């Protein structure tokens, strides 16, 4: 391809933005997993605020992240014209804020998971292994989504696909942690 003055321009494939974002996301996921596996688990409680134990705190913070993610999903559907009516101008910034807050409430949960418990192969079952893998992939997908939002070269389908994947991962994380906790320990604070 060449400009009118004859300058040659090398065309870039439209998906390169997504490729870079996915690569960075994969690196984040691997980093989280390697840390969880290599780090010697402290086996200590961390934050619990007014909750009975750190695990109660984690179960409710993950639930809060899920609620914020549902708000994210609804906001995204509205902005993409999948809900009735035109999305007002505040939906975009509100979508950004709810996404940031979802990440924020997940941080102390991830910190306890990684620092105190570590990547758990769970020899007695599969729940903790699946949860560990999902947790690593979640932060990788989050990094991919943030970079995809910022990328001008990512294809138009990339953002809803990565956002949907991120939402699905959080639902699975909630199912393998908070729901299990509420089911086995009880819905208590």
């Amino acid at each position: 391809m060449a400009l009118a003055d004859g300058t040659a321009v090398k065309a870039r494939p439209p998906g390169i933005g997504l490729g870079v974002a996915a690569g960075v996301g994969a690196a984040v996921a691997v980093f989280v997993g390697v840390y969880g596996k290599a780090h010697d688990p402290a086996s200590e409680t961390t934050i619990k605020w007014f909750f009975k134990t750190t695990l109660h705190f984690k179960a409710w913070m993950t639930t809060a992240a899920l609620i914020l993610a549902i708000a994210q999903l609804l906001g995204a559907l509205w902005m993409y014209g999948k809900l009735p009516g035109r999305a007002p101008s505040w939906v975009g910034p509100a979508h950004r804020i709810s996404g940031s807050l979802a990440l924020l409430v997940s941080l102390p949960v991830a910190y306890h998971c990684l620092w105190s418990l570590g990547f758990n192969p769970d020899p007695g079952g599969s729940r903790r292994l699946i949860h560990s893998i999902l947790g690593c992939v979640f932060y990788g997908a989050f990094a991919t989504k943030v970079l995809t939002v910022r990328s001008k070269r990512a294809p138009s389908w990339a953002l809803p696909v990565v956002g949907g994947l991120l939402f699905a991962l959080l639902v699975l994380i909630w199912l393998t942690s908070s729901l299990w906790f509420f089911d086995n320990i009880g819905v208590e604070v």
Partner: protein
Amino acid sequence: MLRRIAMIVETLVLAAVIVTVVLMFTNSPTAPPAAPAAVAAAAPGVDSAGLYGDRCAGCHGGDGSGGIGPKLNGGRVVAQFPNTADQVAVVTDGRRGMPAFGARLTADEIAAIVEYTRAVLAAG
């Protein structure tokens, strides 16, 4: 206005991510209390505190204050199992949500953990 708030929130969350990563690498766990002579004598050469930290603390808490698993410290475990052999049986065979450790730990290691919970954590 809302866009400005979104930018501020994103900046604060980015700072929180950085703080979390730094803490992951710099925060050192509290050293477990040394096992008293009675525990060491129960299973010489076995690191009972280390075993408890590796195998039990994830559910029962590093100080035995409970979590997914019940509280063990403050004499709770001795009150629930006046007979040590009953506690050894639970650790060996498991029950309800508690996994069986009979195939994963030696008899000496199980004995050391049981003594650790009864002697060291009892003071907690």
